[in-house]
């Protein structure tokens, strides 16, 4: 169906844009706390680096998803992206602790932003999977 194809392509592009935003945003926009006066980083910096790594993998998966025509391969890339997205979401504050105060940048900005963008990616991935499944049928 034409409209299904259009929606599916639109979702692929949106997913790629969101995962790119997660990668670049974590580095430049909603980054963790700045380094101290002596140049040393707090633990949240490593949570940021981990998230960027996971989000980078997600970008690659979504590029492959966009370029692939085969419905099963597209579904495989989408499914592979799910645990990577969850990993990116739980790294800051879950697997790697953040700073002590809730009003510090890593807790007030980075973590909620990563959770929000990650959550959006998860929702769109599920919708894309449903559309993909419908197209295959």
């Amino acid at each position, binding site marked *: 169906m034409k409209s299904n194809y259009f929606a599916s392509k639109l979702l692929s592009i949106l997913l790629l844009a969101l995962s790119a935003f997660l990668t670049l945003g974590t580095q430049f926009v909603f980054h963790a706390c700045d380094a*101290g006066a002596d140049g040393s980083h707090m633990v949240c910096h490593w949570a940021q680096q981990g998230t960027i790594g996971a989000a980078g993998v997600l970008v690659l998966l979504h590029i492959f998803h966009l370029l692939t025509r085969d419905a099963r391969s597209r579904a495989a890339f989408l499914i592979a992206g799910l645990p990577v997205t969850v990993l990116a979401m739980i790294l800051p504050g879950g697997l790697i602790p953040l700073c002590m*105060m809730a*009003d510090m940048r890593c807790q007030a900005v980075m973590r909620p932003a990563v959770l929000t963008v990650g959550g959006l990616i998860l929702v769109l991935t599920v919708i894309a999977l449903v559309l993909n499944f419908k197209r295959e049928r």
Partner: protein
Amino acid sequence: MPIFKSIPVQNCVRRPVRTAALILLSAFLSFSVLAGSLVISGLRNGLNSLETRLGADIMVVPYEATTKAALSGLILQGNPGYFYMNKSVVDRLSSVSGVGQISEQFFLASSTASCCSYKVQIIGFDPETDFTISPWVQRTYEDELGDMQVLVGSSINAFKGDELTFYGSTVQVAARLDNTGTYLDTAVYANEDTIKTLISAAKEKKIFNFGDVDPQQIVSCVLINVDDGYSVEEVLNDINLHVKGVQAVQTQSMISDVAGKLSGVSDMTGSLIVVVWLLVIMIMSVAFFLISNERKKEFAVLRMVGASRKKLLSILMKETVLVSALGSAAGAALAIVLVSAFSNLIESMLDLPFLIPEIGGLGLITVCSIAVSVAAGTLSASLSAYRISRIDTAVVLRGDNG
């Protein structure tokens, strides 16, 4: 299920782009209404919480403390700081007529805490006389706070059993307190003996200039509740006139500055909601008008196969309600997620206490916002729906736009 086969649902499903665009508009409307309402109610809740937590009629501090801007920063914004006066003040204040409940507190700003380059305010209180912190603490922690044990505010990333080090002294976290949305969330609480040990340790390390204060003979502030039959102003003036070296401050007057700022932010947010609301309703009305024009032939065909005018009106209104409800629910969910997730950021950007309403209040605001958005969507479509129901089938099908 029959509902999924109905004409309004099928119309929405078969035109996904049009439906998505309308859902997006509804979501935007609902998001702006709910996010704005949550910010306003969060600020009001924060102010109420601050009023409750300050919980005393009068606060007495050393005279020097009121000459620096530090007092309101420390009391209202939780900026770490300290000031001290001799403990004998408590006895002098107790003898002032009209003074009812009285309790002293001790302030100490930590140097960088163990994990971060960030100062933490340490507040010491006497559990036997305290009437401001204990009622709130007891909601989370019912035992007596032992020596070298602390309670941490909800904004501090430490949990029961964790150890924190201040000035080389290690204290154990006994509990993490409930969120209040105020400066109290960023502080650490200790009993009198613990904070005096920490003040002594800080003095030994010469991190702050304590001068010649004896940690055993000091207090930072004295909180007073006025006895029945006396007015707060009367007791306040009496203290300021007869007790030397101290300044009595009415806590209500400190809050009034915050209330004034809050009122400004609320007014601005309220105005923004109205502007966005009007804009979105206008855009939706235009969108529905254009869509109904584009669909004239579709409805003319429906008329030809026997659909009544009422039926056409019903189809279009059902589509509108469906799309508005979906969009409003999505917008509301996004607003709740974003405002909750970024509440700390909102609080620090506005520099005002901020506390998201509890589940009951949140549910009520959400339902109201969704209802308002659905009503606005329905209102925007009603004129177009009425026009569609009045179309002249013959003129439309002849190709004359009628």
